[in-house]
């Protein structure tokens, strides 16, 4: 489940293709052997043509070369001061358009580099970036969004192309995370009394406790002070395994109580010990739920003094291994 998003048309997206992302970025210093050495040592790259003149010449080169993978490094802004982004560039307009439509998160997905000529010490590199394409809307494991690809072209001081880089970001709608319990109104609290307090003591200890009659051994739920089978008032609270199968379930749509997320699945479960129990299935997609499916209990705190059970679909396993 993701946040609500607004579909964007090609007419809205296509005009961004080819637009510049802002002023070109020039390397602050010419390429130097000491920078190359720091980089290859940090990465553990032992190729001698990056650091040893004789080895480089032995390969037919005129000098050592900069590792091609450093292509992007030279024109980076550095740690102390970042160049201010232009406030009203095409990149900012695209980001704003996507954010307005609900695609507010970003992740870098991949980078392709193409090397045209080898950079050498003394080169001054200039990076020039344009928006290459904005994809149609895609549904991914991260969520729904658009891939934005930019093309950075790196040139030397003569304007000759050293290489270029395709840089792809995925701008997406973040998963609709359930707000923390404190963020929404509290759910209705159970009325507790001397007949059912044992149950809620159990949930605080992560146990689903059900009454078992000391007289005849019958399990009973909901709780009662006496056994309807043998009339004994003596009983013991016994922890259930928490495993069961769905006997029935509802998917609530309306009315919506602010304490819950909708659509809300609530299941009536046949516990394997032989009693039924109702609890929410907050993480289940309604389409994944059906009568007969195995479930397992979990617990979660509702404030400091209350824990409530809920069910999750059990991982499917062959019968007999449970």
């Amino acid at each position, binding site marked *: 489940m993701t946040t609500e998003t607004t579909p964007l048309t090609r007419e809205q997206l296509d005009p961004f293709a080819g637009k510049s992302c802002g002023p070109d970025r020039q390397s602050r210093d010419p390429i130097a052997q000491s920078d190359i050495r720091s980089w290859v040592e940090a990465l553990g790259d032992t190729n001698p043509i990056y650091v040893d003149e004789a080895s480089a010449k032995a390969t037919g080169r005129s000098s050592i070369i900069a590792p091609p993978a450093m292509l992007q490094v030279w024109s980076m802004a550095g740690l102390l001061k970042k160049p201010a982004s232009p406030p009203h560039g095409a990149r900012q307009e695209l980001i704003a358009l996507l954010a307005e439509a609900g695609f507010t998160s970003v992740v870098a997905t991949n980078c392709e580099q193409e090397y045209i000529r080898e950079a050498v010490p003394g080169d001054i590199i200039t990076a020039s970036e344009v928006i290459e394409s904005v994809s149609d809307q895609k549904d991914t494991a991260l969520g729904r969004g658009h891939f934005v690809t930019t093309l950075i072209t790196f040139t030397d001081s003569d304007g000759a192309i050293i290489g270029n880089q395709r840089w792809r970001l995925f701008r997406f709608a973040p998963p609709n995370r359930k707000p923390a319990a404190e963020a929404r109104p509290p*759910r209705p609290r159970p*009325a*507790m009394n001397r007949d059912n307090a044992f149950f809620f003591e159990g949930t605080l200890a992560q146990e689903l406790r059900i009454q078992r009659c000391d007289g005849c051994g019958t399990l009973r739920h909901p709780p009662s002070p006496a056994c309807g089978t043998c009339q004994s008032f003596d009983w013991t609270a016994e922890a259930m395994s928490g495993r069961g199968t769905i*006997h029935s379930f509802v998917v*609530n749509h309306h*009315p919506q*109580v602010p304490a819950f997320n909708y659509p809300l699945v609530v299941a009536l479960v046949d516990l394997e010990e032989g009693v*039924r129990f109702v609890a*929410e299935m907050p993480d289940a997609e309604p389409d994944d739920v059906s009568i007969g499916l195995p479930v397992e209990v979990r617990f979660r705190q509702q404030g400091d003094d209350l824990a409530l059970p809920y069910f999750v679909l059990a991982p499917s396993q062959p019968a007999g291994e449970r």
Partner: protein
Amino acid sequence: MSNLSGKTAIAGIGATEFSKDSGRSELQLAAESILAALTDAGLTPADVDGLVTYTMEKNPEVEVARALGMGDIKYFGRVNFGGGAPGAVVLQAAMAVATGVADVVVCYRAFNERSGRRFGAGVQDRGTEPSAENAGYAWYTPHGLVTPAQWAAMAGRRYMHDSGATTEALGAVAVAARRHAATNPKAWFYERPITLEDHAESRWIAEPLRLLDCCQESDGAQALVIVSAERARDLPQKPAIIKAAAQGISGSTAMMTAYYGDDIGHLTEMTLVADQLWADAQLTPADIPTAIIYDHFTPYVLMQLESFGFCGRGEAKDFVRDGNVELGGRLPINTHGGQLGEAYIHGMNGVAEGVRQIRGTAVNQVADVQNTVVTGGAGVPTSGLILGADR
């Protein structure tokens, strides 16, 4: 078997209009409906000496008596469990009359259930005072199961699973109700019939229940006047003889959450009511040409048809097909439009329709109705009636 059969009758019925916003107090609605019922019966408030209503009723007997200038009230009683009570209030009144405790007993139910407190909103504000009644909700409301539709959907889903009933079977019940309401000027949905497609396309409320599987929320009031059969014969209206009245709690009956029995699609308490009614009235389903089946939620109508033996277990889905529960079918049900189509007055308007069918004055009259069944709410501790023509 009780010895109540035939001793008492419903001699008067009276109601307000049914609306979504009555524009007046619940007490006024109660008083208006009672006065109308007494007038219908040819009686006056001074004749009343008994009052019976629901525990959920918010108009106290003392206020009702004062508003209408009633005299000495010698019997008053209330019945619990909401919509399960319509047959039960009549049973209490009949017992009071048959035993000589009272002579003229009025049953009433009045509320602004749409413009005031809506039952459909559920019990999300249920208190945590440690009563057994409140503790009973501890297993549902903290998990988001807070409304009657949601409670009903749980049983409905399992019933559909076990019986093979589909949304079409639920739709047949809704279509019948709305067809009947469409020709009843008192019905909220007067002149507004629906099709099976309308039903299937209506929005989800609590799956498997859609909007058109759920009864209305209504403002209104309905009152009934119960006297001895002997006295009824001297009053203006043709008596609707109370041939049987019964209540039922059985096995794992609960207030809308009877989830723990062997078969939650089988209404043990309604079967208990039905068995008593058939035995006391000395009748069988074949004697019933039309019935009022409490229709808060459509799956429960199917279950009740089975409880009463109008069809076999699991067969209601076929029984309701092809207009069989509409006018002209084998068993037209809820000829006033039911609570889906006329109004939700906690089943009391259904009792009034049963009386009209016996009198022969219903807008959707079924021919030659000698006996009719009226049921109380299903899925709760409940009740029912068999009303019949005199002699």
